[in-house]
């Protein structure tokens, strides 16, 4: 059970959160301008790194806000959390 530091509420049990997959995959400005392959990449392709991974989380049973977290997928450490619109922090 991760202890996830919601940037609005502070540390809360993982059970309060919903997972939203890889962060920083913006909805394309003009989807019709994309080829089928580019659109398929937006829809279906996500990174699967072993190590730091920026992810979207939603504090669904709390403040109901979406935010981003960098989680190490190998150790489950949450290395940083930041609000929507804030830049991805540099993880050293």
């Amino acid at each position, binding site marked *: *059970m*991760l*202890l996830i530091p919601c940037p609005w509420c502070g540390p809360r*049990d*993982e059970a309060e959160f*919903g997972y*939203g997959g890889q962060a920083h995959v*913006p*909805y*394309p400005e*003009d*989807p*019709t301008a*994309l080829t*089928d392959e580019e*659109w*398929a990449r*937006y*829809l279906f392709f996500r990174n699967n790194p072993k190590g730091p991974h920026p992810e*979207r989380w*939603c504090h*669904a049973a709390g403040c*109901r*806000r*979406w935010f981003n977290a960098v989680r190490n997928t190998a*150790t*489950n*450490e949450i290395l940083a959390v930041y609000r*929507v*619109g804030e830049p991805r922090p540099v993880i050293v």
Partner: protein
Amino acid sequence: MTPQPFRLPDGGRISRGAPLAFRFDGVAYQGYRGDTLASALLAAGVHQTSTSVRLGRPRGIFTAGVEEPNAIVQIEAPFPEPMLPATTVELYDGLVAGGLPGQGRLATEPDPARYDARYAHCDVLVVGAGPAGLAAAAAAARTGARVILADDQPEPGGSLLGTAEIPDWAAETGSELDAASEARVLRRTMVFGYYDDNYLLAAERRTNHLGSQAPSRLSRERIWHIRARQVVLATGAHERSVAFAGNDRPGVMLAAAARTYVNRYAVAPGRRAVVFTTGDSAYCAALDLAAAGVDVAAVVDARPEPGGAAERAARAGIEVLAGHAVTGTSGEPRVASVAVRALCAAELTGPAREFAADLLLVSGGWNPVAHLFSQAGGQLRYDAGLGAFVPDGCRQAVRVAGAARGVFDLPGCLADGAEAGRRAAEDAGFTAARPLPPTSAAGSAERSAPSAHLWVVPGPDGFGTHFVDLQRDVTVADLARATGAGLRSVEHLKRYTTAGTAHDQGKTSGVLTSGVIAQLLGVEVAELGTTTFRPPYTPVSFAALAGRNRGVLHDPVRVTALHDWHLAHGARFENVGQWHRPWYYPRDGEDMAAAVARECRAAREGVAFMDASTLGKIDVQGPDAGDFLDRLYTNMISTLRVGMIRYGVMCRADGMVFDDGTVIRLAEDRFLLTTTTGNAAAVLDWMEEWLQTEWPDLRAHCTSVTEQWATVALVGPRSREVLAGLAPQLAVDACSFPFMAWRETAVAGIPARVCRISFSGELAYEINVLPWYATALWEALYEAGRPLGITPYGTETMHVLRAEKGYPIVGQDTDGTVTPQDLGMGWVVSKKKRDFIGKRSHLRADTGRADRKQLVALLPQDDVLLPEGAQLVAGDRLADPPVPMLGHITSSYRSVALGRTFALALVRSGRERVGERLYVPVGEELIPVTVTGPVLYDPEGARRDG
């Protein structure tokens, strides 16, 4: 009184004044409070508890704790419980149990006991109340840190409970912690799981040891959910065996277990013992047994030079055979004699000697209990000096102290524990103000010799009875067969041979298995490694994990404001998500089919009404609400006029239908959406996700108002008459109040929003009122409609009526692979909007294929009611497998209006197949069906305005 021939005349931590009667395998016995079932059986002279699961060999009590591989029992009374180690069952009066060869039986009656859960936070959690754990907990508590000390035994002391002299400070430290305001001692509590961020689960056995005397007000077991800043694992070590011929016979026991039976339970596990050891610790067992009057025939030590402990044994008159090994046992079923030969450089030499003995104690070394550490993500390292795996690094805030990290002497454990506790408290932000009291145990001046690491004793006749895993009946021969077949990884060998996969999860056999495999492969144990440990450390009952979340508390049940009326009028209910919805309302003597036929007829021919309050409702407000909804729905919403209603469909970005419902425009900047009943929360989440993560600049806000409105659907050609009578201010004619319009008016004097929406094709109204008016509205409609035969109807009738019209239900007729176009609803997809969620996907080649599965209706021959989920095939004979499938049935009903059965189906190129004959395999039969368009009833839509 039943004799206890092996009970020692004095000593032990049992209450001789509290005799307890119990039965095992049909025989009556007696033991004492403080016994385990295992110690009481041994006191009666019972070693064998069952036979083994695969080979049916007699097996006896092998250990004195949770690591027990053999003595697995079924409790029969007071309440049946399967597969408990007899070594962990505290004896109580009236216990009835039996031995189990491998598999238990769950109770068939409901468990009357209560189970519950607690959530706790602490600065330092200490697991294990042996010397190291007690020292750690005391050191941490003295800093003022909040400490929880959890231990599976009824009293603190750990391994000391099995020694001859347990120092007073163990109980004193326990009392000190009990008295400390910020410390909590959890006895009979097994920490079984270690998860991320120092979240640990523990099972507390609160009343199990009281049997039928357990007060019903107390929960039997409690699951503790503990979040700890710092964890100290003082989980001790398990002794392991050595693989030699016949090492599984009843009467073979781990040396420290025998010592525990003598000292803690005042039981002699036999009359005449041989001790086989690879290290010093077994000499303590030999001396304690001798002091208790057991005749110790010999200590067989695999080490050529055993050191001071052997000298002490020799001085006590015990024969020590250095550089020897036990080569076999005989006796039926229990050990009667033990064969010994000299062992030199892994070869047996010299003549064999036989010792008559009914007890053979074995000590093949000690395995630190690193299970929780490994669960925490910690790495284990093979320590060649110890001949065992010890904890190495871990990213979590955890320390390991005492025997759990290979410190085996008492002063070392006390110092190690105190240090770990102090540093854990400091890392949690506390200061160790007072110096630690000196440890009270003195070190021994005795010259100790290092342990030998002996995994297998050779022959004499193969390795077929050299057992490694007693519970799975895995022998050295089995491991040799597996390595001979080419397996190399310890994980593969475990799965191939099943070693370590039983109820005990290989607690006594895991390291031995690794050692034997390493020897077979000619590699170092360190190179081979060990298997991964996963929770739970010991089995946990489902009842305990479920806790109070059983029966009606398992999942919240949602009911509408009209629920009591439905109950009072005999409704049968069905579950839709968490909602309890009226399914149909049978009258006297009616079955479901008759009730649904009557309800359908009322809706199509007269007037009927249903409780539609469970529809999800979302209020969307803000200057950009229209723009926002245009992006969400496939059709245009922003052009909707205030006062009007529009049906809409939402897709996922992949173009597949996600939800459908109506949108009401309440004001220029305010809309009310309805969603399908089961999807309300998902739709709100979906809207929030897009608003927050993609379009934070849009000024729009969403609020769930599902429970703020009660909704009654009034349906049928005569519904207008009923409404007109109750809403005198409302112009109800089709011109003044057209289809897909809404009006605010009083209905039966109640403020209401009336919508002209139909989910049946008939003239219909949805009347929305505040929920506390719901019953008054409903009863007024019932009264006013009675002369017209108004009929309440449930979800089944609603389904039949909508299916006759070809209206799909999202989630029943769709499955996440269906586009609006597949449903024949291209009309709901805007061509004008620049974009909406899913639009780009509708342009993909795949979504444009002509042979996609499309929604059609099916008319079965001979009025058969087809099963939902059935497949569709071409041809009246099944092709050879794999049979090409053309689609499947999504909805199937009997229709009064059509006078026949019908079905909806998703069929490959369905629209092109209209008129074709297909077949539905049902059992051995192929039922012919004719494909038609999905709208079977009133395709012209003539009935909408009544």
